[in-house]
């Protein structure tokens, strides 16, 4: 092979992947940015509108609350699962529990199930006459048996809990793998120093898990910021506008209302938020890396 050919070789290997990535991900993304400066109904000619869509988005209470709801979901999809997964992973990583592997697989299972199935199932569980309320009635907690997904107060947190249920297993798996990487010598050193369990956790375990925690937060936060599937299948943004999320607005404006330019602007804002949060998480993790 010629020297030239040998230099070109790696690029040839990259070509197939980029042949799919560029036209179907990168170029459309660039187009979204371009489209966001236009007014377009998808059928007739587009009209240039400069920052009009962005002005409308920032000025719209609905768009602002959509992003607000997304941040609420970040707590339920990301923070809560991480907090729950830490003790689960830590306490189970060393104890040899019969069937521990199987149990960990079980906890991961919600990840493998389509969000449509999750949405449809939880829609039944949280119904006014569904099993959750039946259980509450059985325990005499009648006052607590509300219309979860129809309540202006509880619809969003309910969806949040569904997210917690779905994502905790993933975090457990990530932390479990991460824990196995922490060198035993660090723990021995801590033991020699007379560190108790809490000290050990804070000084050795937590710093050692910075990487997996960052990955877990990144994945779950992106999940929360998108959340289209779950909302579409359960509440479609209701009651009122309590569960409207950016992904839903984008879909609705583009494919139901014929406001593609506005949808694109919201999509761009969403992307910026996702990038920013991801960057932030990984910055913090890097700074504190052992």
């Amino acid at each position: 092979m010629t020297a030239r050919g040998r230099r070109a070789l790696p690029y040839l290997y990259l070509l197939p992947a980029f042949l799919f990535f560029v036209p179907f991900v990168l170029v459309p993304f660039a187009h979204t940015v371009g489209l966001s400066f236009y007014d377009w109904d998808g059928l007739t000619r587009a009209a240039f509108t400069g920052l009009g869509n962005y002005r409308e988005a920032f000025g719209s209470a609905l768009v602002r609350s959509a992003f607000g709801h997304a941040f609420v979901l970040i707590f339920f999809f990301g923070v809560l699962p991480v907090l729950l997964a830490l003790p689960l992973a830590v306490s189970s990583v060393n104890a040899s529990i019969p069937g521990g592997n199987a149990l960990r697989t079980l906890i991961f299972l919600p990840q493998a199930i389509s969000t449509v199935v999750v949405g449809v199932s939880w829609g039944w569980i949280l119904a006014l006459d569904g099993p959750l309320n039946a259980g509450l009635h059985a325990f005499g907690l009648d006052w607590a048996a509300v219309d979860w997904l129809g309540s202006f107060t509880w619809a969003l947190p309910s969806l949040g809990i569904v997210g917690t249920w779905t994502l905790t297993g993933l975090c457990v798996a990530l932390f479990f793998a991460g824990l196995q990487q922490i060198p035993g010598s660090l723990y021995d050193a801590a033991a020699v120093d007379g560190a108790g369990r809490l000290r050990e956790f804070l000084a050795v375990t937590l710093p050692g898990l910075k990487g997996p925690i960052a990955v877990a937060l990144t994945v779950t936060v992106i999940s929360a910021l998108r959340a289209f599937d779950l909302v579409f299948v359960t509440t479609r943004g209701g009651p009122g506008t309590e569960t409207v999320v950016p992904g839903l607005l984008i879909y609705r404006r583009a494919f139901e209302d014929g406001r593609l330019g506005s949808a694109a602007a919201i999509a761009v804002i969403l992307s910026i938020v996702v990038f920013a949060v991801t960057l932030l998480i990984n910055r913090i993790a890097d700074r504190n890396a052992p």
Partner: protein
Amino acid sequence: MALCRAAPRGLTAAQVIAVISVISVGCGPDASDDGARSGRHAADGDRRILEVWTPESGSRLQMVQQRADQFSAARPDVKISFTVRDFGSYPAQLKLALASDSAPDVVIGNLGWSLDGPLIKAGLLRPLDPWAARYGWDKRFPEVAQRQMRFTVDGKHFGRGAIFGIPYAADVIGWFYNVDKLEKLGDGVPATLGELESDFETARRTGEVPIMLGNKPQWPGLHLFYLVSCDLASDREINGIVFGDRSVQWTDPGFVESARMLARWNASGYIADGVNSMSPADALARFVRGAGVFLPAGSWNAAELSAAMGDDVAFFLMPPVRKGDPRRATGSVGYGWHITATSGQADLAAEFIDFMTQEAFAIQLAAGGDISPLPIDDAVPRAPSRLAGEIFAAWQSVLANGTLLPYLDFSAPNGAEVIYPTMQSIIAGQVEARQGLELIEQSRKEFLDSQ
């Protein structure tokens, strides 16, 4: 920019990918130029195929298809091919189909701005005046229907201009009720708004659910609003909103009063628990199983209700404020038949549409328990069930009195984003009635300004 045009037809997928890969950043969107094609001409052997799209379902769909079969029997050289989509997905799906290169010939639209407006503005539907003159469509329908059939060709004004849609069936919103339960309330069938409200109170006191309603998709709440606004809002107010009269606003007194009434009904416990997570189908199923005294719903539910409940269910239009006044009803002449701009068989399509909208079909619909925009001679054989008979009579009276009011959500294309959720919030007491209506008016202003 020339580079930004849609890829010309006839390229393979691989070529398209290659072309797209070369497109530079920052291209603006381009209009699909599919609409400028010469008409398509489908054929099946010796027969010509007419492609028809419809969102109908249930018994009405059956009747439409039966009538279409009669057309094919009279014209053996033509085959009618139906594509059916559910009501919720229909608007999005129809737009996609009309913009594609497999666009149908005939489609059923939805009057006003909710669906037809954008399609007309995009030049996807054809004005029907030449055929209207030939077949007499402009004289066939009563005055209340005529206005709903028209749109200006530039798609900017609803209610005047060219004729775009020819209606065949009608619907009206009213109160279905459980005959036994109403009897038990002891006051007979309510004849005024006041009597209806006292029935709600009595029902609640005796442990019944007064109003069975499922508002999960958010539009049923608006239908409840329609019932009340029949009584409390004026013709001018309602027509003003629907047909774009700027001197009328959502915050006018009739609407504020109506919204406040709904909020009061909810606060008084008249509306079913769990209303916001219940679908209309669920509500209907519960009503059938004996939950709820009244079911506010559209007349299209008649067939299903009478099949399930027989003579245990009956119907009345919103009772007037003052005893004896003519009843007013919100409803529409349903969907309209349209001919698409790209169809190469417009004359055949017009013939088909004329067949589907003749009095003969109106009579068939009535026999099937449905209603139509054409007034029918009383002597014609009619309704198979008590319920259908009541609806038919109610409809005839509305036509005769000219008291049909159009749907308010005909007035804008994005009801789902503002009108429906806000109405749901108003009913649930989450936002005060006037404040909520201001939000709706604000969004309407934005829409009208953009026209």
